[in-house]
Each structure stands twice: as structure tokens, then as C-alpha cells.
């Protein structure tokens, strides 16, 4: 497996709420709003379908898993969502853990054991703000998330 950027398409299939264009580092991205504590789903294409040749000519579903993280742009830290997503799963549902702007990133992790020693390889991260690998409504375009703190329920006077 070559250490190249994962040429797959990241698609947000379950949006928080409305989206609008917001400029980040000079590029227009779509911004999806939502709440912490609410489920969102991110989907990506089967890399073997998208790029049947290089860099996935040796893509191996038996040894490869997807690794999904989200990066907090405001405070510059990363939260691991999962690093054991099976290679035949192309959608993952999770909760955004804290408020702020978040960028999902995904890559392929390959673990092979040779002579009792694990060898781990990764592709480069593909991230949702990269319009060459991300889509909004079928159009190549970067996107990211903003999560508000999930509100309490209504006040009840028993």
C-alpha cells in the first residue's frame, strides 16, 4: 500500500441541520450546524471503486481497516472516533463530543504480521475540507461541522 492520500469521497449523509458556505483559509466550505450529543453519520466511497488502480491496486479488505478521527479547529486537538472500522463498511455514526468547529478525517490502516511482528502502514489522511476528496450534495466541495452544546429539555412545572 502506497503512502498516498486516500482518494475517496467523503460525504456527510446525515446533516445536523442547515448548511451554508463559510470561508476557511481562503476556501469556501459548507458548514453544517448541530448539537453535541446528537448522532451524525459520515459516509465515504469504497476506495476500490473510486480508484481501482493506484493507490489502491493492492487494497486488501482482509488486512485493512478505516481509521476515523475528528479534528477540532478551534482548539487544535483531535478525537479518535474509531480505528477499527471494517474495510467493507463505508459509513459511520458518532456523536461530536464537544462544541466547536470539527473536521472529519479518514485513512486506511493496514496491519500485517510478519515473523510475529506487526507492521502497520497508513495512507495519508483524507479530510472533509479538501474539495478534491469531499462532496456536498454530489458536488466536489469541502465541508466541516459546528456543534453547539446540546440543550436541556423544556422546563416542566409538575
Amino acid at each position, binding site marked *: 500500500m502506497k503512502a498516498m492520500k486516500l482518494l475517496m469521497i467523503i460525504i456527510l449523509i446525515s446533516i445536523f441541520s442547515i448548511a451554508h458556505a463559510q470561508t476557511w483559509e481562503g476556501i469556501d466550505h459548507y458548514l453544517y450546524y448541530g448539537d453535541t450529543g446528537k448522532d451524525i453519520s459520515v459516509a465515504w466511497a469504497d476506495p476500490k471503486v473510486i480508484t481501482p488502480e493506484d493507490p489502491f491496486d493492492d487494497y486488501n479488505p482482509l488486512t485493512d481497516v478505516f481509521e476515523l478521527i475528528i479534528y477540532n479547529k478551534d482548539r487544535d486537538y483531535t478525537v479518535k472516533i474509531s480505528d477499527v472500522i471494517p474495510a467493507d463498511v463505508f459509513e459511520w455514526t458518532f456523536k461530536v463530543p464537544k462544541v466547536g468547529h470539527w473536521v472529519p478525517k479518514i485513512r486506511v490502516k493496514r496491519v500485517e504480521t510478519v515473523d510475529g511482528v506487526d507492521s502497520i502502514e497508513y495512507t495519508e489522511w483524507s479530510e472533509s475540507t479538501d474539495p478534491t476528496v469531499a462532496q456536498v450534495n454530489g458536488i466536489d466541495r469541502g465541508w466541516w461541522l459546528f456543534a453547539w452544546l446540546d440543550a*436541556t429539555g423544556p422546563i416542566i412545572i*409538575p
Partner: protein
Amino acid sequence: MAKAAEFKIRFLASDSPDVTTNKLYWVEAPAPVDYTSPWVDVGNVKDVDGFINVDLGAVLGVHQLDGVFNIGVAAVDDLGNEADMSKANDLPLDFVAPNPVGNIEIL
């Protein structure tokens, strides 16, 4: 010492795992309650159904109110971010005890 009446409210706690407490805001009606209104920390202790219960008559700062008030509650995370406020308007609150009666006379 006088005894304040009970006035209990409850609200379903935020789903966010990083919520550390909740703020109760109040303002005398008809002014709208917002994040600049007086507030008090009411904690994040949930009952078995996930509700947070508050007896307003026992909350310091609220326990001396007398009038019609708009109140709101907002979840707060460990960094101080506050969620959208859940509100209840035009609540008649009166925690001020009446004047005491005169001395007991034995006839």
C-alpha cells in the same frame, strides 16, 4: 425563621457528555430572560429518569423573589460554553413569607 413555599421545576438534562452543570437564569417579567440575566448554579444531579429537579424556593438568590418572573435554564460544559436556553415565562413566584402574627396570649 419563616418557611419559604416550595416551587419545584424540572427539565431533562442535556445529552452532551461534557456538561458539568446547569445555570438557572431569571428576570422580572416582562423583560426577556437571557444570558445577561441574574443566574445561579443548580448543578447537574439527575434523577433516574434523567431529569434535573430544582426547588426554586430553596435556591439561594431565588428564594427571596416576589413577583412574576421569566426563567431559563442552560447546560454548561467544562469550558464554560452554554447551550440554548430552555425558558418558562410569566411564573408567579413568591417566596417572601407574610409578616408574623402577634404574640400568643393565653386567656
